[in-house]
């Protein structure tokens, strides 16, 4: 083992972690890998493996604190299967998923408030069936509505190490676009005082931030 390491080859533990993750059918947490390998500390081995595979056709990635190997994204054009995308989501479902991901935990009523339209029961069911959304308990307010959150599978599927990696989430939060309308309204009204007209003027704090989101919207439109 020492010889191998001296040569720059992998050590025994690194080889064991590599073999374990190759063989696993599901992503594994560091704790699960460690348990499988008799309690070894696998953090270093994971880091070494990550570095080793960085330039290869297969990458080691961490998604929601679970590790797995997957093919390199730049090879997608070679590997993409001919058949249709396995799950083609409706626009309603993709919007719903985005709202759950960016606002979680969130109730159905809150989703509907943002979308301005009733959400068919089937929409959330599709997301739960896909394994991307789960019921995350109930909110302790009158009526005790069910609240929803995303799953580790959601992070794996969309290639996110954590929810912090959600595209644009920092900008959206800074712009107050993840706050409820009531809060934003209050902030605008309080910020400027008497007239709502002034509140919407470009000099107020909210007036600055939306520049970013404005650009973002334009980009999204181009992407679409």
């Amino acid at each position, binding site marked *: 083992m020492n010889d191998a390491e001296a040569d720059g080859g992998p050590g025994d533990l690194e080889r064991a972690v590599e073999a374990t993750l*190759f*063989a*696993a*059918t599901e992503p594994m947490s560091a704790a699960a890998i460690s348990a*499988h390998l008799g309690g070894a500390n696998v953090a270093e081995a994971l880091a070494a493996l990550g570095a080793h595979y960085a330039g290869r056709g297969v*990458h080691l990635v961490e998604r929601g604190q679970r590790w*797995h*190997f*997957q*093919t*390199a*994204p730049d090879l*997608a054009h070679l*590997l993409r299967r001919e058949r249709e*995308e*396995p799950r083609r*989501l409706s*626009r309603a479902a*993709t*919007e719903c*998923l*985005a*709202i759950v*991901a*960016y606002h979680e935990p969130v109730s159905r009523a809150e989703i509907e408030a*943002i*979308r*301005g*339209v009733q959400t068919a029961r089937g929409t959330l069911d599709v997301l739960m069936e896909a394994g991307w959304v789960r019921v995350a308990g109930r909110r302790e307010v009158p009526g005790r509505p069910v609240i929803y959150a995303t799953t580790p599978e959601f992070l794996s*599927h*969309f*290639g996110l190490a954590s929810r912090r990696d*959600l*595209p*644009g*989430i920092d900008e959206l939060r800074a*712009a107050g*676009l993840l706050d409820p*309308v009531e809060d*934003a*309204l209050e902030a*605008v*009204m309080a910020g400027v005082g008497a007239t*709502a*007209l002034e*509140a*919407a*003027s*470009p000099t107020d704090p*909210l007036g600055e931030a*939306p*520049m970013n*989101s*404005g650009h973002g*919207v334009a*980009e*999204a*439109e181009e*992407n*679409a």
Partner: protein
Amino acid sequence: MTADNSDPLFSAADDGWDMPAAAPPVALYLELDGWEGPLDLLLDLARRQKVDLRRISILDLVDQYLAYIDEAVELRLELAADYLVMAAWLAYLKSALLLPREEQEDPSPEELALRLQLRLQRLAAMREAAARLMARDRLGRDVFARGAPEGLRVDRHHVWQCDLFALMRAYGEVKLRTQPVVHMVRERLVMTLDAALARVSAMLGVTRDWVELRSFLPKPEGDTWADPRLQRSALASSFVAALELARLGKAELAQEEVYGPLLLRRGAS
């Protein structure tokens, strides 16, 4: 940014609103199923103005929406109720925005317009976020997990634990549970009715004063009378004996109040 106007939110559309020229209305207006409700339609109309949602003219947006609904009605398209409700609300909002400010009510039309604007921003933000999410390298579409993983198996193997004391206790419990159980009805000390009759009538023979029934009972000092069950039996039997003697006219019974002491004396005959 347009600094020319003190009222960028509600100013007339002088900041690049080219929608009527750019988008021939007919193609747009013939289709209603394409929108998920009035907010969705409003957002689409707002985007056609190609300006930042922060600086959109709500008044123009309202005009566009109302024009859209008018045209749809002219084409005799069936309009969902929520589109019409939104149209009515926007018409109200428009009239309120055009009224002199002194006559405004609470909440002010500006606040209502701002609220609508904030909602459109939030919907637009989520729509953009959804598009960016869907465009990521997705597992099973762009990147792939191992096609044929061997799988990991953990075979659990029990190490059974038991000690000698547990074994002994278990055996003791079996023995106790299965040993034959003998049920025995114990002999109870009672005063029979005959004995009570004899005792009460004997004691009645001596006096004609009223005597409480309880005083006919044997005194508890005697060793066998200590048992309270025997005393209860004696009381019951003596009571029945008293009733029987009264029926035969050999005794008189009296009770001055309900649950009061039961008094007994020899019959007059």
